[in-house]
């Protein structure tokens, strides 16, 4: 069981609040479809709160309403939190405001590009391998609900683009 320690409490040089500790746990939970991203990078953790009753509350939002990864993520989060001592954490589904790719963090966007997936953009999609702007949409839907399929006309490599939502 976690003993809540007030952040900044005198004498606790390394004091960590349960909320901060939970964020650290969540930052290590990978997205099941794009494991280079954590669910925090993806922007689907909407809040972490410590309730007056002494429970941890975590708000999760689905990316696409039909994304099959949503339930896997819920299980991984519950498991990771339980392993860290938050066995009675309450997971809440948040659908408003709806998830947007704008919530993917700057670190998340860098990780996507390094992994070979072009990060979401409303401008011309650049090839994540050679950086060329000479790219073409092959299919508006890809291997997961959040991706579209592209091809680079310069280096001829096919790649995924994280759709803008």
């Amino acid at each position, binding site marked *: 069981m976690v003993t809540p320690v007030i952040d900044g409490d005198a004498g606790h040089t390394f004091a960590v609040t349960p909320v901060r500790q939970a964020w650290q746990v969540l930052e290590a939970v990978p997205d099941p479809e794009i494991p280079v991203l954590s669910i925090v990078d993806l922007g689907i953790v909407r809040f972490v709160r410590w309730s007056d009753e002494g429970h941890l509350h975590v708000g999760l939002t689905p990316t696409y309403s*039909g994304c099959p990864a949503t339930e896997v993520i819920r299980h991984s989060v519950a498991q990771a939190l339980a392993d860290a001592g938050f066995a009675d954490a309450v997971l809440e589904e948040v659908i408003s405001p709806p*998830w947007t790719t704008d919530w993917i963090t700057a670190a998340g966007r860098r990780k996507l590009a390094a992994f070979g997936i072009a990060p979401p953009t409303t401008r011309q999609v650049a090839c994540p391998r050679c950086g060329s702007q000479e790219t073409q949409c092959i299919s*508006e*839907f890809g291997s997961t609900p959040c991706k579209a399929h592209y091809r680079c006309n310069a280096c001829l490599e096919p790649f995924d683009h994280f759709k803008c939502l």
Partner: protein
Amino acid sequence: MSEDLFRFLLRLGDTNLVLAQRLGEWVGHAPALEEDLGLGNLALDHLGQARLLLTYAGEVEGQGRDEDALAFLRDAPEFCNLTLAEQPNGDFGRTLVRQWLIDGWQRELYGALQGSTDSRLAAIAAKSLKETRYHYRFSAGWLIRLGDGTQESHARVQGALDELWRFTDEMFSPDEVDNRLAEVGVVPHLPALREGWLAAVDEVLKEATLKRPASMKYPWHGKKGVHTEHLGHMLGEMQHLQRTYPGAQW
């Protein structure tokens, strides 16, 4: 009021569920891998929207029915999806015509429902609208490509449009449930959505070199539980597992 809201959520939820099942029939059969993925992804989005709506419907009803009970343990007359959604896939063009007609309607409906006085319905609509806009881009793009394509593709999508158009009147024809909910601002006044939808329809048809069929006041009542013969067959397949092994989980 809660009985009306239950009914409305069921109608919109069922329309999404039935359409998702129809689209799912394409998986492994579409003309190209990209289109297979596209139709499968559309199905997933509609299924996700159906889950949000049916879960809420079950809570409003208060009889302990969850999304699964509503999806798998009701018979055809208890389904209240739009008649258009249950129409068989036919060829790829016909599926895309059905999709485009529904996408356009959903774009108007979800857009207006964002302002619903029911905050949960407004939230579901805002989430779904983002997905619907993408669907519309896909289906309208295909309609233009097929309509303004070969003689064969043009003839096929025009034929599908002529055949399916009769079911569109139901989308904008309110009954007493819709009217009572519109009075209290839970849902928009349905006939008011028709104009925006029709303008978008005409714009795409023009580019697709297709003709809008004459309007038809045919009384389809899918949303009142009166269905074409196709729904029962579809449900027979969709519900088979839960009917044969009640409560099965995996």
